[in-house]
């Protein structure tokens, strides 16, 4: 997450850029944000590759065990290309990654990109349907909580959502499995999908994992929506709208809604970013063939090319969604366009 104060911290630009910036303030700001995200992504790739290489621990010794002869270790390192300098290997890796080639898995020797291509679709499918259900539900419930502020419905929503935030994802998952798949037998477990599966079948299979994800993000999103709407509703201009005699409906549509859209969209984008990460645990619980499961399996056998590729892709999704949230906030709120 990058905060908006960063733009004001930038050094003053040259006169030519300044005039361009004055003519197209919005475009300039969005371009700046895009550039910043690209820079961030690059830094993250350095961190994921370089940081991991700098850490102690070595695939070769893990793979061969403690009693390996130095010669065997050296052979494996040469096989995997680990004996070459780190900078060379980083740029080779990055060059491949930009073209969608993440090299071969150390453990199985298969192409990482091929596996990811198949699994990324599955993960996005799951996250997409969880989002389709949870976003309207969260915004609606958040509004309901504001409408009944400090009365019984608000308090119930508050306590339930506080509890939901505290539940680990796997607990919710197993609770749903025990209830719907084992006791009532109306859902399937494990949630295995394969290529030849029809769309309806697929939807039915992901019902439980999607429900778990919905539950996980719903509480967060709802609490943040409630806070966002409340801060708009308690502002001075809403009070003056009420004092000058506008009806509640008119005040909300004309004054509150335009100002509340930005924070709500921001909340939604942030939680979508959270959703992309949330799939990791949920996929393991439901044995769903997605990116998360792939990454966790790779971590246990220290299959670094897979781990680095998955890490980079997850981080990229996270950064891009956060960037979208930032840009929407800038577009929706003219005050952010002219930082003081």
């Amino acid at each position: 997450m990058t905060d908006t104060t960063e733009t004001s911290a930038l050094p003053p630009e040259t006169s030519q850029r300044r005039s361009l910036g004055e003519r197209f303030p919005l475009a300039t700001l969005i371009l700046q944000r895009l550039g910043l995200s690209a820079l961030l992504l690059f830094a993250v790739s350095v961190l994921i590759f370089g940081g991991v290489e700098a850490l102690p621990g070595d695939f070769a010794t893990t793979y061969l065990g403690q009693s390996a002869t130095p010669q065997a270790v050296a052979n494996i390192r040469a096989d995997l290309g680990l004996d070459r300098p780190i900078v060379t290997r980083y740029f080779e890796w990055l060059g491949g990654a930009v073209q969608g080639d993440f090299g071969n898995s150390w453990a199985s020797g298969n192409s990482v990109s091929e596996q990811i291509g198949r699994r990324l679709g599955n993960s996005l499918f799951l996250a997409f349907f969880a989002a389709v259900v949870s976003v309207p539900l969260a915004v609606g419930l958040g509004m309901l909580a504001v409408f009944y502020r400090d009365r019984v419905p608000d308090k119930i929503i508050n306590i339930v959502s506080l509890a939901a935030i505290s539940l680990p994802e796997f607990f919710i998952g197993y609770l749903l499995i025990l209830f719907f798949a084992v006791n009532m037998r109306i859902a399937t477990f494990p949630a295995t999908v394969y290529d030849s599966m029809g769309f309806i079948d697929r939807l039915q299979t992901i019902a439980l994992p999607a429900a778990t994800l919905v539950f996980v993000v719903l509480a967060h999103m709802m609490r943040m929506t409630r806070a966002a709407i409340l801060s708009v509703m308690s502002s001075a201009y809403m009070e003056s709208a009420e004092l000058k005699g506008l009806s509640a409906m008119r005040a909300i549509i004309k004054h509150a809604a335009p100002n509340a859209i930005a924070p709500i969209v921001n909340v939604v984008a942030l939680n979508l970013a959270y959703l992309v990460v949330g799939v990791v645990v949920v996929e393991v619980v439901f044995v769903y063939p997605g990116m998360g499961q792939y990454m966790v399996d790779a971590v246990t056998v220290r299959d670094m090319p897979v781990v680095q590729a998955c890490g980079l892709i997850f981080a990229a999704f996270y950064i891009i969604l956060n960037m979208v949230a930032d840009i929407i906030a800038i577009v929706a709120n003219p005050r952010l366009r002219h930082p003081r």
Partner: protein
Amino acid sequence: MRLRDVSITAWIGILGILLAFFCAIFAPWIAPFGEREIVGGVWEPMGGAYLLGTDNLGRDILSRMIFGARTTLSVAMAATIISFSLGIILSFTAAVSRGWIDQIFSRFNDLMMSIPTLIFALVVLAALPQSLIVLILVMAVLDSTRVYRLGRAVALDVAVMEFVEAAKLRGEGRIWIIFREILPNTLTPLLAEFGLRFAFSILFLSTLSFLGLGIQPPAADWGGMVKDNKDGIIFGISAALVPGGAIAALAICVNLVVDWLLKRTSSLKGGRGDA
């Protein structure tokens, strides 16, 4: 603060936390069986000699829960304390010094926070050797980024106050200003944040253990117990839900107390809900 000012929900939270700590401290004396002792058949039902039944190897779940409280709480607490010390020292140093120290720390913190915590932990744990100290340090370092962000915001508010200026003018050093001027005035919001981070650490540790990357068997740990017993779910055996429920209950209890602390200090803004 008087005792009757504490709300009912906060009392529930405090009692829950005390119970967990009681189990953790007195585990060897109150547990009916040993931590790694196989006492009966596989997945025996609740009731009888085994209050909560037995697990996938025939170990008593209640005993393992009590010993697990010890592991889970101590690791989570150690990680939280380290992350707090690290985050606060760095963030206060940044807030007091400003200038390039602040810029370097803050930009690096932004970079660390731009990678989701769980993903970052997975990448790092894939490379590092598996040991308890590594686990605690990884959790602590990743969590300290969140502490840093709040700590810097809170400290900046205080650092511009007149009494800090006065301390600077009378020639106090940086260490004095951090520990004697700023820290006492930011204690309440930081205390609430400590609770929040502790709850998050418990959940995070349990998630890592559940994925098989946290505490290694045969040591009992709540997240790992869920993993051990998850295959029973398909047969309708709810053994995995007992430790899962305990994690949830403890996290709820901590959150209840934090929520009450936060309501008391309405001045605190930001830094919440960002897992």
